[in-house]
């Protein structure tokens, strides 16, 4: 991967290290005694802090995951070049779209 992708990958890795730690901790705590939609939404509804946090999370993931997949596909399959990059940009956009939709769904 080129320097720009490398920087993006490692920077988002640092961001995700924090985000995942928070998310895992939260989830492991929240699932105690079962988890219902009501419980989830009670925490996330109108919660700006949660929304901001998960928005950052979504953006970081949408950058980090496709770059990782790119290395894997280029090394383990014959696929490379522009068509691969285009497909991964699409995947990134998919993650962004679905991610923000999910954030909105639990916030609004």
């Amino acid at each position, binding site marked *: 991967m080129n320097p720009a992708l490398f920087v993006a990958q490692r920077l988002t*890795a640092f961001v*995700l290290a924090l985000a*995942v730690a928070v998310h*895992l901790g939260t989830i*492991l705590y929240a699932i105690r005694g*079962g988890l219902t939609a009501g419980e*989830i939404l009670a925490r996330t509804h109108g919660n700006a802090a949660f929304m901001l946090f998960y928005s950052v999370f979504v953006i970081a993931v949408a950058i980090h995951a496709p770059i990782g997949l790119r290395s894997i596909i280029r090394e383990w399959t014959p696929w490379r070049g522009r068509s691969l990059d285009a497909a991964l940009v699409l995947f990134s956009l998919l993650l962004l779209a679905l*991610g923000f939709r*999910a954030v909105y*769904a639990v916030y609004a």
Partner: protein
Amino acid sequence: MMRASHTQRGFIAAILHRLSGIALAIFLPLHFLALATALNGASALDAFLELTRQPLVKLAEWGIVVALAVHMTLGLRVLAIEFFDFREKTLAMLSACIAAVFAVGLVFILNAG
């Protein structure tokens, strides 16, 4: 004969990191879709969460939580080596990663039961 390099801890760590990354990349869009059922109201999300109470689904959830823990701990190892000049001399770092993953997996089982 398995290549000698494929029994080394660095390779095993890298492969686990890579496979867990693939699993998470596949899981994420599904996770987002599941959460977005809340767009149709809390009951829609609840209906979905009902599905997740089946044991097989719980097992898959555990797998994803473990995959996340694996990917993060081994990712931290890579960041330590690349950015903090961490010199890995023994199995200590990898053992710590595995221990952390076990802990997370165990907490999930205890809390989700």
